[in-house]
């Protein structure tokens, strides 16, 4: 083979003079290149959207009727500036936890809830404070709440964990976020279906399993993908609830 008779580098000896210019150029290129890549990749981050914890609103305390889908909802009867009466509020616990153990005893009753709001466009959710500070029975007459069936629908869109989607994490959806979303759903954090086409004016639907069950585990494999599905849709105040028929789940390309 052809012999290399050029400058010869030995690590523990000073670099040969004939090689120093080349090595200096490599060092400059390396450092500048890494800084350049850092900038190029850093400024190419996608916008995570406007979802966020609304700490700027302060602690929110409202009263309403507790419903279980089985994910807990509050049909607000006495609201405030940010959560008006008539609104249906999805309830969640801190982190990747739910508030079902506290909401179940209050099903169908008037309750006061308190916590911090998450909001992403028309989707919002209340992360309750701990214990009775988060949810407790309230005095007063219970107003009957109507649930309107909208029939069976076939929809296309993405199953997300509602809390991350609403702004607990930015970004809070997509395939790179799937494991996090699944972990939320395992913690019975309310899931939300983001429809590619609005349903009765709403892009976000609370999604449950059939017959008042939680989202079935089969659906976890479809989380964060663009899917088509069918189910019964019902209106609870200003919130749509989709009762998934898991046999109809299909990945769309």
């Amino acid at each position, binding site marked *: 083979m052809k012999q290399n008779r050029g400058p010869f*580098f030995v690590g523990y000896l000073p670099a040969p003079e004939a090689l120093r210019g080349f090595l200096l150029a490599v060092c400059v290129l390396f450092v500048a290149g890494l800084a350049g890549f850092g900038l190029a990749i850093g400024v190419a981050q996608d916008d995570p959207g406007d979802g966020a914890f609304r700490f700027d609103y302060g602690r929110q305390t409202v009263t309403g009727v507790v419903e279980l889908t089985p994910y807990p909802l509050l049909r607000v009867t006495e609201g405030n500036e940010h959560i008006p009466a008539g609104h249906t509020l999805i309830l969640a616990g801190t982190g990747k936890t739910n508030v079902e153990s506290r909401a179940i005893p209050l099903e169908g009753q008037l309750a006061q809830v308190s916590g911090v709001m998450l909001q992403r466009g028309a989707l919002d959710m209340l992360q309750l404070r701990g214990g009775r500070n988060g949810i407790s029975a309230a005095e007063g007459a219970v107003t009957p709440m109507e649930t309107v069936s909208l029939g069976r629908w076939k929809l296309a869109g993405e199953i997300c964990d509602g809390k991350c989607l609403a702004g607990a994490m930015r970004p809070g959806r997509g395939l790179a976020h799937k494991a996090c979303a699944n972990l939320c759903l395992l913690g019975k954090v309310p899931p939300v279906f983001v429809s590619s086409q609005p349903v009765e004016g709403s892009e976000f639907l609370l999604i449950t399993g059939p017959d008042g069950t939680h989202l079935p585990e089969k659906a976890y494999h479809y989380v964060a993908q663009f899917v088509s599905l069918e189910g019964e849709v019902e209106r609870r105040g200003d919130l749509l609830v989709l009762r998934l028929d898991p046999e109809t789940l299909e990945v769309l390309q």
Partner: protein
Amino acid sequence: MSVKYIPVQWNWNKYIYDAVMLLGAGLFLYVFLYAAPGILSHERPINAQVHNARAFGACAFVMLTVILCIGPLARLDPRFLPLLYNRRHFGVMTAFVAITHAGYIVDWYFAFSASNKYEALLFANTSYGQLAGFPFEVFGIFALFTLILLAATSHDFWMKFLSPPVWKRIHYLIYPAYLSVVAHVSFGILQDQQNHVFTAIFVGGALAVGVLHLLAALKDRRTDAATSTAAADWVEVCDVAEMNDGFAKIRLLANGERVAVYLNEGRLSAISNSCAHQNGPLGEGRIIDCLVTCPWHGFQYDVTNGRSPAPFTEKVPTYNLKMDGTAVFVDPRANPPGTYVEPLRLRDGTTS
């Protein structure tokens, strides 16, 4: 070369190498973490933990890509050999950057639940039967543990303890680890990217690694074809006039071994081409202070007996030589490592 084990045998070249490496990685992270957000026009920022995880993950990928380019670059152009010299420090630093990336991920995406976050990492997504939504985290876990293993065993102590062939095989795991990183990124963040700048850098980097290795392999194949010899009792190396003082001619023997025949001050000697340290090509080195010096890490051997000078203890096999006219021949049967062989003295005027 070291006769006893110390954490790092520092010298000025290592200081400079590490300083440049740290400066590059530090600038990457600084620009990504502190300069880029000001340029982004997001209504609300990406979560700091996610941003940090992305910065360290992207940095680890770029560093690993550069590391894997150094080997073939040095095969294609010896001027890149100095980058090989202290590459293990680069690898250890990359492992730390990757650990930091994993730490942010686990402490963010897999925390806040009733489950242990490390267990959650394994059970949260079990969609192994599908491509879209595949649990890409497992690729990252494999790559991370491999990087940690390689970093932990990077010291020469482990090479001596495990023996160079075993150590070398373990460290070839860097290739499955890199493929695993490629899969980790491809099934993960690339699935959600709307802006494809990172995609282009990622594909370009991975392609650079692949193409450079291919080119280096083709070059090695051409070299092997040019230096290979048929089986014989004595194998012709070259005409002595083709040899240069202080340099070697390499021949690939029929048994797969390579022999380096050196001309040293008018005398011919032959030793194995494989350095006892990391199988560096001794025949591509040269003689400094009467000692064959490996081009990779500067390990040295007496060309007459294949032994490192005292107090060092490394040894390589030697070979017997003979001349027929001006032709140099080597006996393909290697002598045991460290065997002295009387050099062949040349007559005046037989070399260039």
